[in-house]
């Protein structure tokens, strides 16, 4: 632990914020597109599929970086329950970032529906059509989508709590900006 980094590597921080924006967009686009019959439905779902697939690739890169660089330790004075909560919620967030795009792809494959991304890029189907599989994946994509949004909100609340209330340097580990007032454990 002694040579653990004080902050996430720059590339990790960049990816965190880039993906944060994109995932929030994905959640809103998803919820918006399934509730409209307007012409914007088509560009929305095209972006949803294309961005969702891109995020799948990004999260794999991100996990590799995470294994390589590791993560800064949480403050020593953080209560055990909060540390556990942080670890579990981050694992869940990673899990959802991987699973959501896979469910989206699988759902379309199981519906015998071609997956064509922006620019006409077509992803070959890896699953045969199946009513049962389609229904399972569809339900999972919808309900885990809501769970994802709830978890992101919780995560944002926790992040802001660290930044504004506890001011314990946790937010600075992921922030893109240089920390203004360096926190020390003694402060």
């Amino acid at each position, binding site marked *: 632990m002694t040579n653990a980094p004080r902050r996430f590597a720059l590339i990790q921080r960049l990816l965190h914020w880039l993906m944060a924006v994109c995932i929030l967009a994905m959640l809103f686009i998803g919820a918006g597109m399934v509730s409209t019959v307007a012409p914007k*439905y088509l560009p929305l779902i095209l972006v949803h599929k294309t961005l969702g697939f891109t995020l799948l690739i990004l999260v794999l890169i991100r996990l590799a970086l995470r294994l390589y660089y590791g993560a800064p330790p949480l403050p020593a004075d953080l209560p055990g329950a909060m540390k556990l909560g942080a670890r579990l919620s981050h694992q869940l967030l990673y899990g959802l970032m991987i699973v959501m795009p896979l469910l989206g792809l699988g759902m379309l494959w199981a519906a015998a529906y*071609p997956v064509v991304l922006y620019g006409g890029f077509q992803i070959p189907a890896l699953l045969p059509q199946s009513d049962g599989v389609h229904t399972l994946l569809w339900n999972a994509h919808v309900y885990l989508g809501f769970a994802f949004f709830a978890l992101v909100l919780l995560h944002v609340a926790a992040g802001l709590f660290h930044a504004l209330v506890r001011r314990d340097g946790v937010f600075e580990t992921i922030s893109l900006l240089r920390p203004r007032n360096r926190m020390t454990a003694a402060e």
Partner: protein
Amino acid sequence: MSLSGKLPRAGLGSLVLIAAVLGGGVVAFAYTAGWLSPGRLTPERMIEAFAPPSGAALGHRRNHAKGICFTGTFEANGNGAELSRAKVFEQGRYQALGRFNLGTTDPNAVDATVRVRGLGLQITAADGEEWRTAMINPPFFAVSTPQAFHDLLIASGKKDPEAMKAFIAANPEFSAFAAWAKTAPWTGSYAEEPYHSLNSFIFTDAKGRDRTVRWSLLPSAQPVPVSQADLEKRGPDYLEQEITERIRAAGPLRWTMVTTVAEPGDPTADPSKAWPENRRKVQVGTLIVQRIEPERDGPCRDVNFDPTVLPQGIRVSDDPFPAARSSVYRRSYDLRAAEAKDYPRTGTAKP
């Protein structure tokens, strides 16, 4: 450094801010999902509008519920390549899969009670790229907009005769369709019907030039008019029996695919308006229907003939229907796939 020691300094303000961010997030999400806008035309509302008072037929398409599968070939003659760079227009033979159907929400409807007949078609290029289209036999659509179609479903479902009157007053374009429904001759065969895309699409040629088009399948079989009463006497499922028998007896059936090219000023966004007769027409190929199979275990059952599944070289135009249809067909597919146990397959096929 305890939590309680920090709170006063950070102030209540921070907690309020955090609560506001969360609350704002939830409200924004709820708004986006349409939960705060009961007036929004959602695919759910469209699907509900189709449902008869007794409820939808579970496991079946929410519209055009009665149908029968076919397989065959699309033979492109190469003329289409001049209009669109889509691979299916290059001279050659491509796999075709489709479904003859009736525009009804009742999979057991009596054939002679359903005015609109349709054809769902999927053509697959050699590399697997798909083109799906769902076409019907009237020469123009009943209404100008998806919202008007919703209103039509609601009005025609009401017992109150004033409802339809009010609808027609608000959507005068419907009278042309009503006249067609009343006067156009009926035929006794799916094989004797033309099928029209009605919606317009944009073809892009190899040089990148765009043209707005509609397409039709014109039957090579000669239409033989029958009265609705005579058709009714032939039995509730006559059309499916007839098409099966016709192919058994006389071999494959053919339709010529004709694309019509719009000229500037033509109503490309309104499928209730036919284009002038003298528009340029290009015959692009022939649909050859070789084999009929019942829907229950047939290959068309699991296909969503979403008119926005288009190959490179064809895209949607300013016609608002294809997007609306795509959204609603997706929902219909989700529902009927989830209800598959209510429309069980007979066996040997897949689970």
